[in-house]
């Protein structure tokens, strides 16, 4: 195993172990997403057809907001006791840390999605009219789009005073193209009115561009004062 993948695996295992013991990110994400589902279901009483039109937006916006809660936690445990400095003085590559954090967040947000999607289906009486299997690549690519930028910008805002405000300020504008693709592709599958292929390709391109950009810039972010 190469040094990069070895350290990525070690850091990912460490993060999962820490999350398993503290459950900081998962608990706060779950409660937040659950509140969104319940509050929205009381606020609207849509018909089945209306549900199909708005559910894509509701689902992804609630996942985005819930993900921000987890993303803020990601680096919090690295600043406690200044453990990040131990990583910075080691010869470990910066990208191993970034990839491990992004993969960890991907796993946590995917768990949230797996738990919350049945609730959305139940509350909004959803039944896809288009090819349902396409929801899997949309969920995977969409979640990666959120966490890869989220992990990067959470690291960038690490040393700012109001980092919990700074993260959504940086993340939301840059996530608009991905969010648009996620919402439009999900709606396309739920309504069955159009093909979601264009939006899936757009999501894939977005992921490739931003993952590359984050990997190229992360060392500068990590070593910045």
């Amino acid at each position, binding site marked *: 195993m190469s040094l990069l993948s070895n350290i990525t695996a070690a*850091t990912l295992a460490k993060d999962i*172990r820490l999350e398993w013991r503290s459950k900081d990110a998962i608990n706060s994400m779950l409660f937040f997403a659950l509140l969104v589902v319940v509050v929205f279901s009381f606020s609207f009483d849509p018909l089945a057809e209306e549900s199909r039109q708005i559910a894509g937006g509701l689902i992804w916006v609630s996942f985005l907001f819930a993900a921000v809660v987890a993303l803020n936690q990601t680096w919090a445990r690295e600043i406690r006791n200044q*453990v990040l*400095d131990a990583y910075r003085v080691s010869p470990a590559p910066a990208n191993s840390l970034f990839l491990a954090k992004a993969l960890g967040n991907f796993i946590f947000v995917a768990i949230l999605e797996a738990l919350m999607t049945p609730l959305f289906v139940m509350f909004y009486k959803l039944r896809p009219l288009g090819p349902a299997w396409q929801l899997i690549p949309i969920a995977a690519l969409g979640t990666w789009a959120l966490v890869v930028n989220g992990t990067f910008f959470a690291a960038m805002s690490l040393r700012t005073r109001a980092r919990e405000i700074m993260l959504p300020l940086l993340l939301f504008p840059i996530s608009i193209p991905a969010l648009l693709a996620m919402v439009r592709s999900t709606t396309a599958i739920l309504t069955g009115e159009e093909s979601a292929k264009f939006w899936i390709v757009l999501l894939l391109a977005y992921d490739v561009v931003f993952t590359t950009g984050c990997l190229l810039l992360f060392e500068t972010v990590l070593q910045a004062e």
Partner: protein
Amino acid sequence: MVTDLVKQFGRFAALRGVTADFAAGRLYSILGDNGAGKTTLLRTLAGLTPPTRGTISMLGSTSARAVCAQFGYMAHPSLLYDEMTGLENLGYFSRLYAIRDEGRCKEVITLVGLDPELSRPVGQYSQGMRQRMSLARALLHDPRVLLLDEPFSNVDLHSAREMVKLLGRMRDSGKTIFVVTHQAQLLEGTADEFVWMQAGKIVDRTPSLEPLKTP
């Protein structure tokens, strides 16, 4: 060797043109009042704080990143995960240094006088135990240069003296050691040189603590 090292935080200059030559295989104790620049100097040597001006040349390189595997850094905070045990912490850090010897973690924990089988998470350790575990983390990869910031704070006198003996043995084995401390008396007889800092500058270098004893 550091040359004309300047570090500014905004308008505040923490280091104001530090120039010094440090020989290998010696134990240096860096002393000075709060705000004298001791920690900033140590962080700059470790490559954690880039200098505003000046150069550092260590182990034949001017890039700290290039030789960071040869540094062992211990900061005032523990640099450990509170939710994991000492052995789990060192297990993770050993992977960062590609250490394959599984016994190494237990070896350094024993070296600093702790029990490697302790199952409590580090967050439940006493402050002194945490300091010793932090030292174990810094020693894990057998570095050539040790940069230690307040290693004896909150450590009981007996344990602190044991740590000093350990540092002395390491110096004797050829390691270069920098210790920032307010408990310099502990190092008298062990440190090769006391480096006095004031207002971001090195103002004196002495073989003993005499300037402190002189009113």
